[in-house]
């Protein structure tokens, strides 16, 4: 293992490892990944991350904000490579960590983990430039074929134990729920760990005007339609009827993590399990859709402007979650200026982890922490008796921008978002210029 430790140290310093080591690493990784199912079971607590796109220094910032491997259990939802300058270092580091700590980091496949896409969007060029041949690109692509297509997070707590850090705005503290209130649902922290805001389940965030006709579908916050809050009782895992709320279990039901989204060909998680995933991402079909689709403010299914995958609306998500006993779908794949965005009454969330994407988008990044059920000392499991407090009730609890009420859905897990900005730029030295492309010879 010391070889991998050395490789990890070298990659952490943003220095590529020799080609022969890459070959060995990729071989080991494949042996490991081939044992994983198409949908990996992951136990909470876990920290879920979105697109990285070769932004190595921002990945280091992510680890600083979210905690290091193996102390923190991570789940990366794909798109490690392309566009950025350090796809190679970023992907190899994650792969090294996977091989070294297989139970502490889960990698699933994004649409960029593909031969065809990487030849277009940069990773192929980068490998050629850094190694002078396409061998390393080929080794990495062989690993891509073995990456799981999704993950199912089990045992996440429905209530969140708040952190005891200070609030960014000290005045906000008085109006926010306390860290140990028994129904804290969401906490948002900045990169220094200060609390930006907190939400408890029974306080729907203040509504904002619904601007959805102005917005790009699936886009930024504050376009959630207003919904009258009407919730069913507390959830219990496994139950499917309206009496599913079980006082014996305050764990939220499972969370499905996938890079893109749903597929019209997949109505149950078991169908994902049946796919033959060990291949290049196809141009169409269920596997393609899982990696390419996007949620959108439509009904049913729509064609995707990407030319692959589909758009899917709230009804699709709610139906899928209900049928599969999910409380939340967690996906990446789309830039979100605020780093994360919950949609459709918090039945699906987009998590984006590449800050200031492509050096110019000005967005912040986020990671999502799901706590472990039973790990919180202070909460009181809620039973059906709580139903009454949430039925009907005061006028419209649309999003506060990022968050929204749920309708007839299982209670999602408690969610802690850590939002962070791009890593400081100044400390990076200027490298020697490389030989130019043939055109200039």
């Amino acid at each position: 293992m010391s070889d991998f430790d050395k490789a990890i140290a070298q990659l952490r310093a943003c220095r590529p490892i020799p080609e022969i080591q890459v070959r060995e690493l990729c071989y080991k990784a494949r042996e490991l990944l081939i044992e994983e199912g198409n949908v990996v079971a992951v136990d909470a607590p876990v920290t879920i991350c979105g697109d990285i796109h070769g932004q190595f220094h921002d990945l280091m910032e992510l680890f600083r904000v979210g905690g290091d491997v193996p102390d923190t259990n991570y789940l990366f939802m794909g798109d490690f490579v392309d566009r950025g300058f350090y796809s190679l270092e970023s992907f190899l580091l994650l792969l090294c960590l996977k091989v070294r700590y297989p139970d502490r980091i889960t990698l699933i496949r994004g649409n960029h983990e593909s031969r065809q896409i990487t030849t277009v969007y940069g990773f192929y060029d980068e490998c050629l430039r850094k190694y002078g041949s396409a061998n390393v690109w080929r080794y990495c692509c062989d690993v891509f074929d073995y990456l799981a297509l999704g993950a199912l997070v089990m045992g996440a707590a429905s209530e969140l134990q708040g952190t005891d850090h200070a609030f960014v705005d000290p005045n906000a503290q008085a109006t926010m729920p306390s860290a140990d209130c028994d129904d804290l649902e969401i906490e948002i922290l900045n990169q220094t760990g200060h609390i930006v805001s907190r939400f408890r389940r029974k306080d729907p965030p203040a509504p904002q005007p619904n601007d959805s006709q102005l917005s790009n579908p699936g886009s930024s916050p504050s376009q959630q339609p207003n919904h009258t809050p009407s919730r069913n009782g507390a959830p219990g895992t496994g139950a499917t009827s309206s009496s599913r709320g079980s006082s014996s279990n305050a764990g939220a039901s499972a969370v499905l993590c996938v890079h893109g989204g749903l597929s019209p060909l997949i109505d149950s998680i078991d169908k994902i399990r049946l796919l033959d995933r060990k291949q290049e991402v196809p141009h169409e079909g269920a596997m393609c859709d899982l990696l390419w689709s996007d949620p959108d403010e439509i009904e049913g299914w729509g064609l995707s402007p990407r030319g692959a995958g589909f758009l899917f609306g709230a009804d699709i998500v709610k139906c899928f979650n209900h049928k599969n006993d999910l409380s939340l779908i967690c996906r990446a794949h789309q830039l979100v200026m605020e780093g994360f965005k919950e949609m459709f009454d918090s039945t699906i969330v987009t998590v984006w982890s590449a800050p200031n994407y492509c050096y110019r988008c000005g967005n912040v990044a986020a990671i999502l922490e799901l706590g472990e059920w039973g790990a919180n000392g202070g909460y009181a499991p809620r039973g059906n008796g709580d139903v009454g407090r949430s039925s009907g009730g005061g006028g419209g609890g649309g999003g506060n921008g990022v968050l929204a009420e749920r309708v007839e859905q299982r209670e999602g897990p408690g969610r802690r978002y850590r939002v962070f900005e791009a890593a400081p730029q100044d400390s990076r030295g200027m490298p020697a210029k490389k030989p130019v492309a043939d055109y200039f010879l």
Partner: protein
Amino acid sequence: MASGIDDRYRLALNRLPAAVTHTFSSPSKRIHDGEDLGFFLSSAAYRDLTVWLLQLNRSMFPTKMSDGKLETCTLTSPPTYSTNVDNLRSMLTTLASFIERAPPSTGPRRFGNVAFREWCRLAESEADLLFQTHLASVTQAYTSDDPEVSNALIDELKAYLLGSFGSAQRLDYGTGHELSFIAFLGCAWKLGAFADGEERSIVTGVVQPYLELIRKLILTYTLEPAGSHGVWGLDDHSFAPYIFGSAQLGPAFEPDDYSKPVPTEGSLPSAPSPSTVANKARTLDYKDDNMYFSAIQFIYDVKKGPFWEHSPILYDISGLKDGWAKINKGMLKMYAAEVLGKFPVVQHFPFGSLFRWETDPQAAADGRVRSVHSQQQPAALVSKDVPLPGSSVGTAAPWANAKAMGSGVSVPQMQNSTGVPSTRAPWANSGGGGRSRMQAQPASGVPATAPPWAKRDVPR
């Protein structure tokens, strides 16, 4: 041939004879598959685009006058512009003023600002008026005041002008749109809008203001880079300023001596070293005079981070030791391969009566033009991103352009479609989607307004 003047490097786009009746036609897309691309590369339109680009490029080098003085080409000391150059400048000013009438939407959005669609709508609805106001003298010469002919002419020019500001649907902009503007100016040349020797004015007086308008549009509406490989492309949006800007800093020569080609190495003695581009502060010193530095400055304006990291290709080029003329030559080669030679880019180029979809008769007959072709082509001209004809082993999406993109998964096709922020499938046709429901899958009816896609070698 014996005593003739040696003018083998004289290149100029042919003008349309004013006396001859000409049938204008509304341009349409013709490049649908790899074979079509092959045809394009030997077409009259391709020859014209190449000749026009080289003609403009030659004019941008510093001039050695007959009295031995040097006349450099800087943006801050413009020549006196002709009426038509001034007219085109006014047209661009008017187009820029539409931004005030289409203010960016403050509502929620993912990236590109939907108000750009309103700007495009304004440009389209006012285009006829713009032509009447600014180009009436040009159009009249060919239409004898026949409104039908006049409309046909304006339709033809309008396709290139309106195609040059980015995609309203996708809210992006790339080199395909830039090519459309070069072609628009080529049309104007063919129609006699410009005099011989006016090429430099066209570039500094019209192309540069066009690029400035584009930068304003990109910033105002946060247009996505169409055709970006992320950090692994030359520039997120543009190519032309790197060609013309490097020519500006090349060594002086006698442009009227057509026995000599443009310089291919060396620099103007007073030119900044190519390495200057990696220095943000010094870029400021040259951005107002030089198109290359002006483009570099825009990168500094929009990107945060080390230059070598977000622009590694430009950074590497800045290390060239053989001067700006060498860079210019490389840029032309790269343009031929990465823009004109890329199916994803030129599939959107429309052909009409001025840029014609027909075999270049001179390509075969005239060795001179042929030499222009080969001189500008990198070895593997027919780039491998071209879908291989007949190799439809694959599983193209029903909405993908099956003819063009239908080859198998095992033969990666390349696209250079979009950079930030969302990825589009290389095998899909461009644009479209989003509104129709699944049960109404269009067979191939997805509007194809997508800008450049492209790529080079197929990795093996």
